[in-house]
Structures are given as C-alpha cells and as structure tokens.
C-alpha cells in the first residue's frame, strides 16, 4: 500500500512539474537570470507548493504515525552548519549551469530527453562520490540503516 501512495505522489509531483513549466531547464534558467529578461514563474510554483505544504506539515507534526501507520520521519536537524551551506552552494552552482535539479531531471528522463540521461547519470555519480567519501570517513555510520 505504501508503494501505491508513493507512486501516486511521484506521479502527481511529476505532473505538477510539467504543468508549472519547471521540467524545462530553459524556464528555470529564465528565473535564475535576474539581469536578463526575468521569468518569475518559479516563485509562483514555490508559493503554490508551500501553501498546500504548510497545511499538510502542520497536520503531520501533530501525528506520530502516518495514515498508513508508518513512523513520521521529519528531519531532526535544525542547525545551519558548514555542510548545509557548502552543499547548497555546490547544488546551486550545478543548478545554474544546466537548469536541472533532481526532480525535473527525472521527469525530463521520462519525456525521453537524451540530455537528461547524461545529467541524471552524472548526478547519480555525484551522489555516489558522496556515499563513497562518507563511508570512508565514518564507517560506523553506514552500518546503522539511515
């Protein structure tokens, strides 16, 4: 059952990305290009998503179990540390280079865009590099399912 709801959530998420125009890197880069002809559409995507999300997360916070009885796994970290900022800087730089972030890139893969294949493979490699370095730095941590 939980795979069914996750599938539907992924499907709706993808349709939202397509409808909003955010699956198209040119549109995302139009938002990131403040000095050119600026396309503020991404602000409206975030506004709509956060509007609905705020209601859902307010409800989620009052529960210890999900509607399917799964444990509520809300992030526990609250501090703003160097890893967060460094990671966000690297991600933002990559986002600005190609106009792809992870969700839209996977949707573009589903569209059959060959350039998305290159991006997603490189993204998986980048994630693999992170896993490799983490495992070498903290071997104990990977033993615990995270």
């Amino acid at each position: 059952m939980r795979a069914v709801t996750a599938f539907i959530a992924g499907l709706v998420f993808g349709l939202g990305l397509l409808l909003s125009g955010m699956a198209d890197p040119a549109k995302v880069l139009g938002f990131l290009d403040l000095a050119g002809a600026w396309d503020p559409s991404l602000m409206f995507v975030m506004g709509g998503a956060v509007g609905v999300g705020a209601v859902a997360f307010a409800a989620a916070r009052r529960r210890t179990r999900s509607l399917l009885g799964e444990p509520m796994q809300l992030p526990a970290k609250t501090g703003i540390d160097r890893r967060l900022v460094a990671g966000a800087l690297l991600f933002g730089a990559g986002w600005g280079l190609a106009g792809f972030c992870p969700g839209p890139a996977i949707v573009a893969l589903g569209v059959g865009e060959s350039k998305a294949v290159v991006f997603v493979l490189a993204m998986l490699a980048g994630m693999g590099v992170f896993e490799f370095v983490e495992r070498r730095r903290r071997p104990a941590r990977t033993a615990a399912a995270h």
Partner: protein
Amino acid sequence: MTIAWTSFTPWLSLAGGLLIGVAAAMLILFNGRIAGISGIVGGLLRPARGDVDWRLAFVVGLLAAPLAWRAFAAAPALHVAASTPVLVAAGLLVGLGTRLGSGCTCGHGVCGMSRGALRSVAATATFMAAGFAVVFVVRHLLGG
C-alpha cells in the same frame, strides 16, 4: 530588471505548484516521508532493508508523469541548451551538493519551507544565490 512577459506563466505555474504541494502532502501524510527527490534517490544508493519499495515507486511515478501527460496533451517541449561537458559538470555538482546539503529544491525549497525550518530557508537562499550568480557569470560575463 525586465520581466519576460512572453514566457511568464503565473497561473499555470501556481497550479503546478499546488499539485507539487498535494504530492508532498500525500507523501508525508500517508508515508510519513519528506518529498525530497535527492534524498529519495540518494537513499537508493545505500539501500536499507524495507526502505527501497516506496523510494522506487516514487521515482517510477515521476518517470510515468510524462506518459500520463501525453494521454491528455501534447508532449511538453523541453529546451536543454547545455553541452554534454556542462551537463556532466552540472550533474556531478547537483548530486554531490544535494547529498552534502541534505536537500534540493523540493526537499528544502518546498517541504522545508512548508515546515518553516530555518535550516531549509537558509539552504534555499544559498542555492538560489549560487544559481543567480552562476547564470549571471555564464550569460552576462562570459556571454555564453
């Protein structure tokens, strides 16, 4: 600053954003999970028993969205200007950065901001600033 009125789509983007919010709501309320694509995919690279099925199902849902879309409308046009070397560099940066910073546009930008998490507000401000800076350099200083 000039607004690109011809490409600006406030209503469609707002509607798409609402759908994204509904999807994030579904995943937290039914599955108890954050709809962060980088975290969901990243978790597949270190699979833990009993934690793989919902991640795969979510990704398959994302991949299936364009197929569902085509049942009702014309295939969406995507414009990828980046060359292959740039795509590789961008992909590596996005993969590494989202895992190191524990989130991307959806995890921090949508879910984190929805929770009012200061950490996510900081991450979102940071990756947007980096994105603005890189596009400025590429388009206006290098003239690419």
